């Protein structure tokens, strides 16, 4: 009975997140589902408290990172990056794509995938359009790199944050182990995207207009204060384990510094930058997944996944994680798998992260459920080019998964 209730609660939370009903927002549904699993005893009160205690700091960390990224936006960092990409491109589309790769991979790694998707992608579109080049390759690159370039640091993706504690490694060791997989994945993306979009990147003859536009692009200097704050926050993350201070405090300090220097227009703006409803959703989903886990889901996943840190085991974990991320979406997939792979930390946990971070590029919509839903609701959604996404996903994801996992395995032998 408890098993059925917790699975229904999980299904309801995930459906609400996909369907986005106006009258029943996902965070309300998930919170209700979390309440129900505790009230009916599918999860003990103690179990719920443990789950919340584990997720609380992570969610706080996420909030600090979101506010930090929003502070960077207010300081004009993303506009400056747009100008940097324009001038660095010299009006040549392939060079612009290279700049976009550098900036998008860096932004994703340091300020998380949310910053790349919400704050950087529109700037990239604008930059390409102003240079009179097709924005297509550059926008697709942002969309892909937001997922695949989120391997490097614990702060690059919420999935990494959720799994960071289970890794049992310091911030710097995490980065050291994931550096090679990160680079490998970016290389795969570069090779595939620059080939697939070769036609869009070609310019007939010399493009005087684009070169002139690139030269005439206003020079927007990088905002020194914000850049310094981000740099110091990174240094703080790096020395956190030596200093014995949790990394979250460096993120909080960075966020506060930017709030003081570049105050938001209103408290409301500050509040909404932290996406409070999403934070509630994550906490509630954590409780619901804990209930499902205790009632049999964990043992099913445990039976599916190999243990240990051998290369075949890591590959299997990465692939299963990628599949689950595509079936359920990467956030619930992480919450479900992390409990099981924690026994094979750090290798198993990091292999799972490769799967759940790179995997979503396979279907674009991120999960089969979302894909089916969209098919049903918007039978003729002309604004989503699913075929193009599936093609790019099929070309990049399997190769990236294998190459990155081999990279991780090599890194584990060295560090």
């Amino acid at each position: 009975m408890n098993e059925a209730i917790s699975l229904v609660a999980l299904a309801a939370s995930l459906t609400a997140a996909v369907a986005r009903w106006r009258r029943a927002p996902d965070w309300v549904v998930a919170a209700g589902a979390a309440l129900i699993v505790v009230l009916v005893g599918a999860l003990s009160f103690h179990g719920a408290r443990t789950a919340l205690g584990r997720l609380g700091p992570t969610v706080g960390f996420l909030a600090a990172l979101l506010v930090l990224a929003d502070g960077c936006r207010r300081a004009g960092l993303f506009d400056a990056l747009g100008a940097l990409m324009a001038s660095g491109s010299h009006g040549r589309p392939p060079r612009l794509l290279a700049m976009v790769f550098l900036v998008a991979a860096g932004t994703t790694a340091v300020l998380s995938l949310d910053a790349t998707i919400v704050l950087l992608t529109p700037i990239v579109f604008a930059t390409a359009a102003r240079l009179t080049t097709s924005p297509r390759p550059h926008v697709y690159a942002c969309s892909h790199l937001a997922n695949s370039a989120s391997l490097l640091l614990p702060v690059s993706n919420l999935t990494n944050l959720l799994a960071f504690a289970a890794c049992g490694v310091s911030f710097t060791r995490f980065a050291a182990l994931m550096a090679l997989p990160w680079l490998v994945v970016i290389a795969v993306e570069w090779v595939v995207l620059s080939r697939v979009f070769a036609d869009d990147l070609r310019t007939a003859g010399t493009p005087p207009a684009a070169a002139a536009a690139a030269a005439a692009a206003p020079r927007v200097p990088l905002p020194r204060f914000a850049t310094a704050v981000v740099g110091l926050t990174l240094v703080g993350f790096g020395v956190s384990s030596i200093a014995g201070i949790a990394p979250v405090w460096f993120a909080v300090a960075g966020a506060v510094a930017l709030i003081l220097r570049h105050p938001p227009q209103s408290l409301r703006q500050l509040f909404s930058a932290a996406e409070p409803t999403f934070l509630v959703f994550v906490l509630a989903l954590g409780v619901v997944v804990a209930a499902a886990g205790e009632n049999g889901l964990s043992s099913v996943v445990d039976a599916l996944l190999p243990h240990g840190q051998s290369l075949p085991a890591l590959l299997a974990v990465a692939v299963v994680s990628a599949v689950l991320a595509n079936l359920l979406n990467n956030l619930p997939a992480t919450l479900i798998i992390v409990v099981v792979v924690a026994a094979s930390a750090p290798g198993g946990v990091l292999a799972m992260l490769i799967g759940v971070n790179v995997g979503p590029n396979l279907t674009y919509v991120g999960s089969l459920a979302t894909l089916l839903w969209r098919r049903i609701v918007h039978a003729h959604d002309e604004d989503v080019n699913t075929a193009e996404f599936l093609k790019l996903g099929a070309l990049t994801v399997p190769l990236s998964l294998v190459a990155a996992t081999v990279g991780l395995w090599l890194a584990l032998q060295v560090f």
Partner: protein
Amino acid sequence: MRVLVWITESSWQPCVDQAGRLIPADAEVTLLHVAASEVEHLAEHPGPERFGRRRRPPAHEPQVRAIAESEAQALLAAARERFGRDAHTEARRGRVEREVLEAAEGSDLLVLARDGRPRREPKSIGHYARFVVDHAGCPVLLVWAEPPPGLEDMHWPPHLRR
């Protein structure tokens, strides 16, 4: 005679130059640009990575649609100036192949540039132009975006080799 000239960011200059050279002086010319709606959509709408997040980000980012529209107008204006003759301009937004075909209905001639590799081979026509050429109901004038290499550099299939 009504002529539609479809221009793109990557090849508008050679396309307009050759159209000016090849189409009759008394033709009624329309220059067309199509903005790909799915790219704008992708830039504006967070994808699955934003699972559980707000559907739309706060409206402080550059307004993608507005930028796309003003850039399309600027490109069409530059193309008309380079064309140097009287011409209408038309900016459309949607799935590129479809919009071009719809705009070309009723035209007596459609002018477009090859959007693929600069070599004498099937892939010299990229997938947008390929679809348009395959499905256009009017005569099509397909120009080279760059001067093609000579016949001697062409890769002949085995059964046509000397």
